[in-house]
């Protein structure tokens, strides 16, 4: 039995919570298996502090590829922490968005990992990272065409079949657009969700970054998505640059605290998604554990306010 910190308000489990007919509250719970709470990315520098302090967070997320090793401290600490926290495994190497067939070896490594540490959730990206046997270690953009949509759906189907579970697909942060693209990103994502039955990992920072970078409205972007299919939200920090014309170019750095504008957009997103598991994503300039836990707490408070709002809304 897991002894997860009980951050999910008990009201959610009461008959009152059960009968709350608000579609935003009910829909995600059909496929969302992460606790409706805030989590943090698990970093080796925090292994011992987490075990010692067991802070009140709802789940931990790891990058799948970091744990595709035979043994050692990574598996040791992940196993021990998974006894206390729900686990989200987040892949960065499947190259689902690429035009090439998925790497069978990598799929097998993933199956092995998910057997060893059965996670409460697995997610991947709408991006590509490998081509012709080379791995680029970045989430690269794809053209949004009918042709590519078909390929991406086949890839998602293949992954869900191999892993025997529904996965979440994350919206990317992008810096360029393809002249060949004929489908807006939100429509592309909606179609993948529709055709494959996968869920969405809504990265609110990625939405903000991409919308600034491409002159789009971030609220419109979110409301164009099937928000009832969001199984997890990511919050992260960005860095600032400018493009060749001097326009702001935001970079999804995962190296800074979540920006105020992203917190505001998160509050807006929660109105559409309902309360949903939310991750503070930090991969660079990793601060001491209490700082991350503090950011998670801030997300947790926003989440709980949505739980309250959802319950108070009259039944439809």
């Amino acid at each position: 039995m897991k002894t997860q910190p009980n951050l999910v308000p008990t009201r959610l489990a009461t008959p009152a919570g059960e009968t709350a007919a608000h579609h935003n509250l009910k829909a995600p719970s059909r496929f969302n298996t992460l606790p409706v709470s805030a989590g943090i990315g698990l970093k080796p520098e925090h292994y011992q502090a987490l075990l010692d302090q067991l802070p009140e967070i709802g789940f931990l997320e790891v990058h799948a590829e970091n744990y595709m090793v035979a043994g050692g401290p990574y598996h040791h600490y992940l196993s021990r922490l998974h006894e206390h926290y729900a686990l989200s495994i987040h892949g960065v190497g499947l190259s689902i968005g690429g035009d090439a067939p998925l790497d069978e070896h990598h799929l097998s490594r993933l199956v092995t990992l998910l057997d060893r540490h059965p996670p409460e959730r697995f997610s991947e990206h709408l991006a590509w990272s490998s081509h012709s046997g080379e791995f680029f270690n970045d989430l690269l953009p794809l053209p949004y065409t009918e042709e590519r949509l078909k390929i991406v759906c086949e890839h998602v189907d293949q992954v869900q079949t191999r892993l025997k579970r529904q996965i979440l697909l994350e919206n990317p942060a992008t810096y360029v657009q393809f002249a060949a693209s004929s489908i807006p990103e939100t429509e592309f994502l909606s179609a993948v969700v529709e055709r494959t039955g996968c869920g969405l990992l809504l990265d609110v920072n990625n939405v903000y970054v991409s919308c600034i970078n491409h002159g789009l409205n971030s609220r419109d972007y979110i409301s164009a998505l099937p928000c009832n299919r969001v199984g997890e939200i990511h919050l992260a920090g960005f860095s600032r640059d400018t493009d060749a014309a001097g326009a702001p170019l935001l970079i999804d750095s995962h190296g800074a605290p979540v920006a105020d504008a992203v917190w505001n957009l998160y509050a807006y997103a929660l109105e559409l998604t309902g309360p949903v598991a939310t991750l503070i994503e930090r991969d660079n300039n990793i601060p001491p554990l209490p700082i991350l836990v503090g950011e998670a707490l801030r997300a947790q408070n926003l989440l709980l306010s949505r739980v309250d709002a959802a319950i108070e809304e009259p039944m439809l």
Partner: protein
Amino acid sequence: MNRTPEADFRQALLNPELSAPAGLWAWNGSDPTTRFDVYRNNVIVSLIEALESTFSVVQRLVGEQFFRAMAREYLREHMPNHPVLARFGDSFPGFIAEFEPASSLPYLADTARLEWARVQAYHAMDAGPLSAETLQVALSEPERLPQLRISLHPSAHLLRSQYAAVSLWAAHQDLIPLSQVDPWQPEQALILRPQLEVEVIPLDRATAAFTACLIDGLTLGAAVDETLNTHSDFDLNAALALLLQRQALHVLSY
């Protein structure tokens, strides 16, 4: 419309002098190359940083600027061929050995080999050590002893260097003062992770030669003969006692 952008991306990602691939645009009409540079930077910098974290002592021996230039050269021919970065860089020590601008530091490649072995030991399969009793029982059967095979712990890696790669590494962990290190002194070490911590265990030349025989799968009889051929001072009992005590031994077979 059959052409997909991946191949164009690859070229442009790895060659900073090229402009962005054709077929890209920005909403404000700006030159997409500046935007494409974000990807270029992510790819190159993240892979260089992956090498830096594995080969941190090498980086300190040559300085950040030199290391980054060397790593960038390496990437031209050795992009990772899978997404598991713990296994990226296996050919970097060999590359360093051949890298002309680093030839004045001949101990650099072996220092890199030691660092690579430490990362591999860190992530190696977990296994319990051989118990003293099991070894004792085997040693008490002299007629079977020459046929005995002793395998090493799955995390075990042996480094045999013509240079003081082990001391150079230790000096950069603040274990010994750098001023005491004579880089031209040959050194040997066993890299091992019996539990959660990786250990670097200095070995004398004879014990290292014997350990190499065990790693190669030789029987005890053949391993001792081979070691005595080159090291007449070899002390089998002392070597076995050390390897047993450091939990470097794994299983016995005949």
